[in-house]
């Protein structure tokens, strides 16, 4: 998950930059009531007023669901659910082996956890949305009669080629690796199962026209004199100076920043690499949080644990352009949170706590809140 917005929005509010008033009343005005069709559920992100954005990779769409879950959380709370995969399996009448949790996000209003779950591992698996409230009991979010809107993500049109031609069936699929809501746009990082490229779309919300997604490609030059394409794994919006940026972690682990204003159709964006976080490692999930008046990034990784990354002097950070050798760390300093083992997903719970999905002994998955480091 990626909590996008809350940090940025809080920052913008603190700076006196408020969202356009017109939006505040109209986030759900264009939604219709019914049952949104999902072929899959992937990355999740919360927007304003309890609106949950659900990425449907198989359906090549983003669905905005008005959850109605807008009652503010009250009082201090914590969350701990051991064997969340087994509990969900019981609820859905399946074995735990057939339950895949594809993303975790916390509703910033209610602090309820939402999980994108696949019941089954095959192509006919059933996607379901699960909510875990403070009592720790997972429940199915009924989507039979809900307010929603949908944005399709069509393939980019090809100049001078119209029609299907020899494409009787298209095996191409764009996996959505992360989504986030920022101000009035849904940002979507995607990766194709054919072309090796990273795309980032910015789609205005409320969704007005379904075909106006824009796509850009992002490059970074962290590798000596060569620059190369690489897929974005996870990203968060973050203010650098007064300028909203995206901080993106790539599949081969450099941390890269670029201004959000550069996300324009057809633009070439060259990111600035601000940290190398070590080799033999993949980033999994990232959030921004504040502690003691400073901003930090919290990044979960496959083999290098959870990193607490300082943003001190990030606005003046030098771009890393030389190969990093001998251990592979450079740029923004970070510390590894040694006690947090096996973290796959994380999202901020409240000002003091984060919720993580972590692997425990015997293959069980635990959902628990931990104090922000």
């Amino acid at each position, binding site marked *: 998950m990626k909590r996008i917005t809350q940090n940025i929005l809080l920052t913008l509010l603190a700076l006196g930059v408020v969202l356009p008033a017109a939006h505040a009343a109209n986030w759900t005005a264009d939604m219709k009531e019914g049952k949104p069709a999902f072929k899959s559920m992937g990355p999740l992100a919360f927007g304003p007023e309890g609106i949950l954005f659900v990425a449907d990779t198989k359906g090549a769409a983003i669905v905005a669901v008005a959850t109605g879950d807008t009652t503010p959380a009250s009082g201090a709370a914590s969350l701990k659910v051991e064997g969340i995969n087994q509990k969900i399996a019981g609820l*859905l009448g399946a074995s735990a082996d057939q339950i895949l949790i594809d993303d975790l996000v916390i509703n910033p209003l209610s602090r309820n956890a939402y999980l994108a779950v696949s019941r089954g591992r095959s192509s006919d698996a059933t996607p379901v949305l699960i909510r875990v409230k403070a009592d720790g009991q997972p429940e199915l979010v009924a989507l039979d009669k809900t307010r929603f809107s949908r944005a399709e993500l069509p393939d980019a049109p090809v100049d001078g080629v119209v029609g299907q031609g020899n494409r009787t069936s298209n095996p*191409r699929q764009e996996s*959505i690796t992360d989504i986030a809501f920022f101000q009035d746009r849904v940002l979507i990082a995607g990766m194709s199962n054919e072309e090796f490229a990273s795309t980032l779309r910015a789609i205005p919300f409320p969704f007005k026209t379904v075909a106006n997604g824009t796509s850009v490609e992002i490059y970074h030059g962290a590798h000596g004199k*060569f620059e*190369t394409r690489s897929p974005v794994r996870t990203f968060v919006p973050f203010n650098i100076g007064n300028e909203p940026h995206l901080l993106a972690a790539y599949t081969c682990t450099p941390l890269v920043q670029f201004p959000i204003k550069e996300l324009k159709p057809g633009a070439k964006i060259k990111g600035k690499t601000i940290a190398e976080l070590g080799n033999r490692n993949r980033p999994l999930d990232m959030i921004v949080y504040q502690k003691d008046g400073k901003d930090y990034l919290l990044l979960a990784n496959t083999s290098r644990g959870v990193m607490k990354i300082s943003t001190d002097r990030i606005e003046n950070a030098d771009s890393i352009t030389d190969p990093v050798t001998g251990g592979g760390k450079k740029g923004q300093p970070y510390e590894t949170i040694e006690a947090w083992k096996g973290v796959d997903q994380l999202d901020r719970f409240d000002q003091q706590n984060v919720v993580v999905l972590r692997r425990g002994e015997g293959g069980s998955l635990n959902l628990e809140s931990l104090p922000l480091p």
Partner: protein
Amino acid sequence: MRIHSASEILERQRARQVAGLHGRRWCRPLQLSLVAGFVVLFSDVQAADPALTTSRPQQPFSVRWASAPSDTNRVTVEVLGLSQAALEKLRRANWKTGQWQQVLSVYAEQGDLIADVGLLPMLGSYRIQSELLRFEPQFRLEPGLTYRAVFRPDQLPGQSDFRGGAISAVYQARSRATNPTTVVTQIYPSAEVLPENLLKFYLHFSAPMSRGRIYEHIHLRDETGKVIELPFLEIDEELWNPDMTRLTLFIDPGRIKREVRPLEDVGPALEAGRQYTLAIDRAWKDGSGNALKDDFQKVFKVGPPDRDPPEPERWNIQSPKSGTRDPLSITFPKPMDHALAQRVIHVMDPDGRLVEGKAALENHECRWTFAPTRNWRRGPHKVAVQTTLEDLAGNNIGKPFEVDLFEGVPRRFTNSVVKLPFAVR
């Protein structure tokens, strides 16, 4: 036989002892097993006809698994023996799910003591239909799993003084066939010599596969049998085609020689002059939950890197004759990406319209053929090639995979098209 918790077995035994037992084909062995002990009892439940297992009390209630009236492929739980008064109260109860579950809960057993403690009841709908209470699971039952319905008469309206205890009925969902049939049909690129900076493989399977922890089943070894550590880009989303018969496997860009950062520490995945084996192990399960029929290996040698973008102007086009459906053929000087070459190369007729037909690749992806669905028209045609076409190293038309910044090679971002004319005579 799966190992189940002693508490479950005891609960079942208690329930059956209270309720009495009734069944069809397995009625007799089950009665015998009661004498022998509860472990044998469970063994009999496993062996029961999955079509129906029933636990019927002496009086007045019984619980059974039965086909849904609306869909005989779905099974439901039926509670019989409710009084007219109780049925009427339930009909008017307007209960929430949690209240229904107090009366009738159905559990998908997880197979171990820890997991089954605190197991949540399955979701489903509750209805009063004529003379019975029916529970219909919201999701189809999973093959091979054991499901347990527990009915608590004392939770019925007006039955709080009922002393009979809970009644349960177990259903063993029939297992899928366990005969492995799915195989790896092909791995692309199909050539025996691949460039040192190879970007990806495509793994093709004969049937849909399953996702989750797939990379445990894919191994790259060198000629000495040593496993190459983390050579692939392991992506949680797993890059499948929609029907999950093709997986895209990218080499980690950090492990491609003369390239990104981790190289200095861990070395390239592939080096020219050496031989490697890409091995798929049979433990990988297909979409039906069966392992693959066989292991699969692709042995290949590695040659020099390829840093040159494909040059369509060097392709050799062999035109078909008009009035035939002979294939159009294009020969490439080097192999192209198997998936992209079939998707991003099109044929346009003299009017500029796309020609319908089927593309295929031959000769280790060095020859592209196109069979039209209608006869060729006489006149000038064009082959339209999207510049997103890649060779085996990920070089696009007019855009190498890596750009040397000092040489100032511009990048192109539009998905543009190169058109190659040919004449049909």
